[in-house]
């Protein structure tokens, strides 16, 4: 495969598409598919045939606003239709070339105008199982440019210059990590993609792997060239069977086109990727546990150092990055480091994909420039809290993150700002809660999660989370005392400071952040035995009332 051949493929795909008068893109991501997008696609094909119009009906990845599904976009007009049922297929075909069908048209300009799409640039435009579609959208151009025109250190320099930071949550500078692995001694090195999206409430990585799998593979190949690796692994959760099958297809296609394998692009560079399945363990998102799991062992973390960059998979230097980090690589190489550097806030560059869920009007995937205010994400892009309820908090970072109250919403989103507020960027889950959520109960939910997901290797995490859960349960059932609260706070600090890996060190965050911003709810539970949101069942109070009656 050479650059000329790549352009040839792109051209032939474009010519083929030009043979159609209209392109109808149907979102087939999980949310839309569960609302009948499959039947809709078949109906559209049939309706187009019946009407005698030349229409290309294409299956695509997630378009974004899942709460409006199933979604259909008609090109070249870029008309977006929402809540399209299969029986509406004929209506859409009838309106092709004319004015859009008014009853189905989706008006979400506020939602899209604030977004900047880098990682999701192809979402909703390409068929994830066709490599030609990806190549026609500048796919694999970055890889071939890198192989023929750039040195490994040149690639690392460009990534460093872009200011990209790890999108898995920690925010470690990607260029620095690549540089460390590149410098590490060893003939054999590995590149690993962390697709173990364990955070409940987050599904960005799933959408990227399902909607644009080649982008991840291209990013990994560029990384492998930069650090000197020839073997890669993608670690995917077993809960994402579609992502696994799309990646398998993508890998096969890439091999067939000579974009993976030996002597890629007639250079001495060899690289291939294998898929490894997770099996439902949150702790495997931690890099040392992930390595153990790829090696076929129980996913228990190891103390660091040594870091995987010097001793990782089978003791060899290993580069581990998140799906979204790899997805950012190809655009950075194509457009230059400065282009990426110009987006975002001072210390957090580029864009971030968030999965907006919970009590909010427009649930789904959004990609925003770093530094955007939380309020804009929630009120403008998300459309605010529905059903007349009042916004209470937004939770970021999953079980390792924290809850951010209304008064902090005007802060710009960045790694450092979120950390300062007691939360973390995390992989990008953003769950909105309204006044029907009890913050004590939310904290208890997360601690229960961490308790069951703790691998049990170190004591602070194994025993600490269990004790915190007991204390929170007492408070939630109206049996808590102020001493319990003091003990809980004490325990939070102990677990945070003495746990072995990220899971334990961040497990107290939901409790600490709710204690910081919603302390009155804890006090109310303890002193007045009352849960304002009406979530917690106060056993003790009910029996007291009976006595009085």
């Amino acid at each position, binding site marked *: 495969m050479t650059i000329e051949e790549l352009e040839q493929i792109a051209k032939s795909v474009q010519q083929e598409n030009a043979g159609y008068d209209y392109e109808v893109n149907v979102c087939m991501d999980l949310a839309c598919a569960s609302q009948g997008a499959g039947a809709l696609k078949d109906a559209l094909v049939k309706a187009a045939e019946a009407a005698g119009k030349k229409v290309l009906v294409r299956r695509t990845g997630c378009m974004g606003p899942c709460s409006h599904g199933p979604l259909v976009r008609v090109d070249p007009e870029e008309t977006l239709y929402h809540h399209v049922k299969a029986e509406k297929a004929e209506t859409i075909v009838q309106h092709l070339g004319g004015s859009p069908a008014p009853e189905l048209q989706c008006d979400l300009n506020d939602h899209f105008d604030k977004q900047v799409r880098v990682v999701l640039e192809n979402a909703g435009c390409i068929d994830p199982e066709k490599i030609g579609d990806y190549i026609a959208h500048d796919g694999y151009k970055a890889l071939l440019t890198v192989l023929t025109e750039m040195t490994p250190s040149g690639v690392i320099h460009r990534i460093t210059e872009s200011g990209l930071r790890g999108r898995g949550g920690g925010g470690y500078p990607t260029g620095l990590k690549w540089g460390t692995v590149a410098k590490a001694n060893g003939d054999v090195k590995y590149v690993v993609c962390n697709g173990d999206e364990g955070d409940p*409430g987050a599904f960005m990585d799933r959408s990227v792997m399902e909607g644009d799998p080649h982008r991840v593979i291209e990013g990994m190949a560029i990384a492998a060239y930069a650090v000197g690796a020839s073997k890669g692994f993608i670690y995917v959760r077993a809960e994402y069977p579609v992502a696994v099958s799309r990646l398998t297809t993508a890998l096969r296609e890439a091999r067939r086109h000579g974009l993976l394998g030996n002597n890629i692009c007639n250079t001495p560079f060899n690289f291939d990727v294998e898929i490894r399945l997770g099996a439902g363990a949150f702790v495997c998102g931690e890099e040392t546990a992930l390595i153990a799991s790829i090696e076929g*062992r129980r996913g228990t973390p190891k103390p660091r150092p040594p870091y995987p960059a010097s001793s990782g998979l089978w003791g060899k230097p290993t580069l581990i990055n998140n799906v979204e980090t790899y997805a950012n690589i190809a655009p950075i190489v194509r457009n230059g480091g400065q282009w990426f550097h110009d987006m975002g806030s001072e210390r957090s560059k580029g864009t971030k994909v968030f999965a907006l869920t919970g009590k909010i009007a427009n649930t789904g995937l959004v990609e925003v420039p770093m530094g955007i205010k939380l309020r804009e994400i929630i009120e403008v892009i998300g459309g605010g809290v529905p059903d007349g309820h009042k916004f209470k908090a937004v939770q970021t970072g999953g079980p390792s993150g924290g809850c951010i109250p209304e008064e902090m919403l005007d802060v710009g989103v960045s790694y450092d700002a979120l950390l300062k507020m007691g939360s973390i960027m995390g992989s990008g889950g953003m769950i909105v809660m309204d006044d029907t959520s009890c913050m004590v109960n939310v904290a208890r939910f997360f601690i229960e999660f961490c308790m069951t997901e703790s691998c049990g290797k170190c004591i602070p995490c194994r025993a600490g989370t269990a004790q915190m859960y007991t204390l929170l349960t007492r408070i939630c059932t109206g049996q808590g005392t102020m001493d319990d609260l003091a003990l809980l706070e004490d325990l939070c600090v102990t677990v945070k400071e003495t746990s072995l890996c990220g899971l334990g060190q961040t497990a107290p965050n939901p409790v600490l952040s709710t204690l910081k911003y919603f302390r009155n709810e804890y006090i109310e539970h303890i002193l007045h035995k009352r849960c304002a949101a009406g979530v917690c069942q106060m056993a003790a109070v009910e029996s007291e009332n009976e006595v009085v009656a």
Partner: protein
Amino acid sequence: MRKNGFARHALIETLHTVQSSFGFLDDDAIRFVALSLHVPLSQAYGVATFYHYFTLKPPGKHTVTVCAGTACYIKGADKLIAAAEKRLGITPGQTTPDGQISLMTARCVGACSRAPVVLCDGEVAGEITSEQMLEQLERWAVE
């Protein structure tokens, strides 16, 4: 196993294949896998019990899985679980005595935008109410 070249590090892949073929991992299967891949039986058993995805008990004819991820929890997944528990008389992870229905919970299936989510034999049903879920359970129970 042959696909992965009988590699020892492909233990988890192999167990996945066994579970998708037989529905669960029994002692014989684990013993066979350990022997074939030349890994200690303790490691094979350890892996099979460590990961939530593997089950050592045979599942029922139908499986209802309630997602207990954060978004689903905020939207009332706990009520769905309680309703299913009450109807079936079992707790999550168990199967009804007649072997018809298994009740499971999942740690997020990634369909958070349609919370609360229930998987009925692997089919995603989003924005589901307790009534809709119970209807499905009734249909299965009379089969």
